[in-house]
């Protein structure tokens, strides 16, 4: 037997639904807001796409930029970058000019001049990042993208 009162939308029913839906929606939106507050809008860090200076500031050969954890290689007008962050657990690798290799002091990984992981626990080669030229003449490194070992940026 169908009770008519159950299917009729009474004032009480409407306000009941309005109240419950509103509260749940409000709480849900507030929760999103609270979580969103924790995602920082600005970072007190060097940005992931950054300027490293004018091309003429770099000598031939290899330059280490400690604040960006990056090695810049220059051969005349050709540039490429090799990240100094070990792919194992993110320590900073050292360049050994005699062996022409990168050594990681944390767990003993060794990388070739091109960043290829030769020995040790590092699972992947050191990433290379692409370069570009900003309108004001500075070189820009984009650490959001990775390029292969045959990459070079020419002026």
């Amino acid at each position, binding site marked *: 037997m169908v009770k008519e009162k159950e299917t009729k939308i009474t004032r009480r029913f409407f306000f009941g639904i309005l109240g419950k839906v509103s*509260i749940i929606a409000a709480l849900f939106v507030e929760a999103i*807001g*609270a979580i*969103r*507050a*924790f*995602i*920082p*809008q*600005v970072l007190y860090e060097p940005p992931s796409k950054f300027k490293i200076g004018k091309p003429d500031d770099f000598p031939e050969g290899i330059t280490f930029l400690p604040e960006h954890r990056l090695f810049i290689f220059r051969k005349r007008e050709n540039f490429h970058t090799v990240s100094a962050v070990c792919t194992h657990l993110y320590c900073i690798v050292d360049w050994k000019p005699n062996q022409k290799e990168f050594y990681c002091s944390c767990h003993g990984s060794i990388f070739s001049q091109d960043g290829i992981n030769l020995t040790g626990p590092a699972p992947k080669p050191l990433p290379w990042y692409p370069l570009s030229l900003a309108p004001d003449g500075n070189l820009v490194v984009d650490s959001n993208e990775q390029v292969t070992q045959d990459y070079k940026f020419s002026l």
Partner: protein
Amino acid sequence: MKEKFSLIWRNLTWSWSPRSNREASESVVKNFWLHWFPSRVSFQSINWSYSLWLGTIAASLFAILTITGLLLLYFYIPSVQNAYWSIKDLENVVVFGWLLRAQHSWAAHLMVAVVFFHLMRVFFTAAYRGQRVWNWYIGIALLILTLFLSFTGYILPWDQLAYWALTIGTGIASAFPFLGKSVRFLLVGGNVLGQSSLLRFFVLHNFFLPALLLFLFALHMWRIRKDGGLACMDKLVHETRLKEIPVSLTKTYSLLGVTEGTTIQVETTEVLDEGNSVRTSPHLVRRIALVFLVTTIITLILALSFPTPLEEPANPSVTPIPAKAPWYFLWLQELIAITTIRIGKIAISGGLIGGILVPGFLLLLAIVWPFLDKSPKEAIGVWFHKKRKIQNIVFIFICIVIIILIIIGVYLRGPYWNFYWPWQPWPEIPKTF
């Protein structure tokens, strides 16, 4: 569908649904609401106009302060170099940071006001009489804690207001006879205000004072139960006794059946029935939810409408002109300014008289008042009972004096604490540019 929802609701509000009388009585202990609240409350207790629900509003404000405060804790930096910077970042770059801060600030101001109004209501309804005097004392302690929480809170941005309020506050502490200087040394963490002071006040504001407040709040609630509910219950019990309705012989609630007699808590549960009370769940719970909701809405509207003030970064070499405490301390500041007594060569600092003696006297008055109150029992739980006329007048007088002092402090005091009528312009304060 409807059944599913009501099933979920029952599972949320009931630990389990009792299937026997014994289980029903066990549910009192196992259900949070029944543990906190009695199973029935009188019509008058739940009435808006009796208590004005000020206590609930204050508790809601505290909940809002705790939630916004915990979120703010992730962004605030308690270091002298970075505190101001972190507040600016909250205002500018933290998503909803401005809202969190604004709501926190408004809830704090409202809580001080509401707690004081709650005290006034309790006084006017003589709800501090008899065994309720202990709850009155817990309430006084809660009032003082609220004021301290507010004070320690506005120290944290380390702006000009914070720095100089701390200077004056610790100055008042040092005016305390004998122990004063040592108390100040401990509060400041040294002789000069600095990083150690900020850190101490940070920990006080975020841990010790809220923990103490929560503990006393729980005690405050427990006392309500032990005292048989709100003071208006006394009347109900009294009337029932007059009618000589016997209390149930099977209920004693005594300890292992060893003690004799009955308590007010038992009597009030006996007295409540369908004719004069409602079930706590859902009626009281719904009202509490409503009060919490409206309090949230009010703080949200205020937060959306007004920016939160922040002064210049703290500068130890410049005292702002004028240097004013927040409104709830302005009556004290006014007192401190005007109560320095000079008799011949002897001068007693206003810091001692206005800052310690007068508030100390008021506190003492609050402590002994329940014993000075000789009004009859019919006056308990009633607003402005005629037998309490004189007391009420004295109390109102004290409140009015405090409010007048606050108004003077806010609107009529200008640079160098000189008196200015509202239409008199203040002298321009020099700026850099």
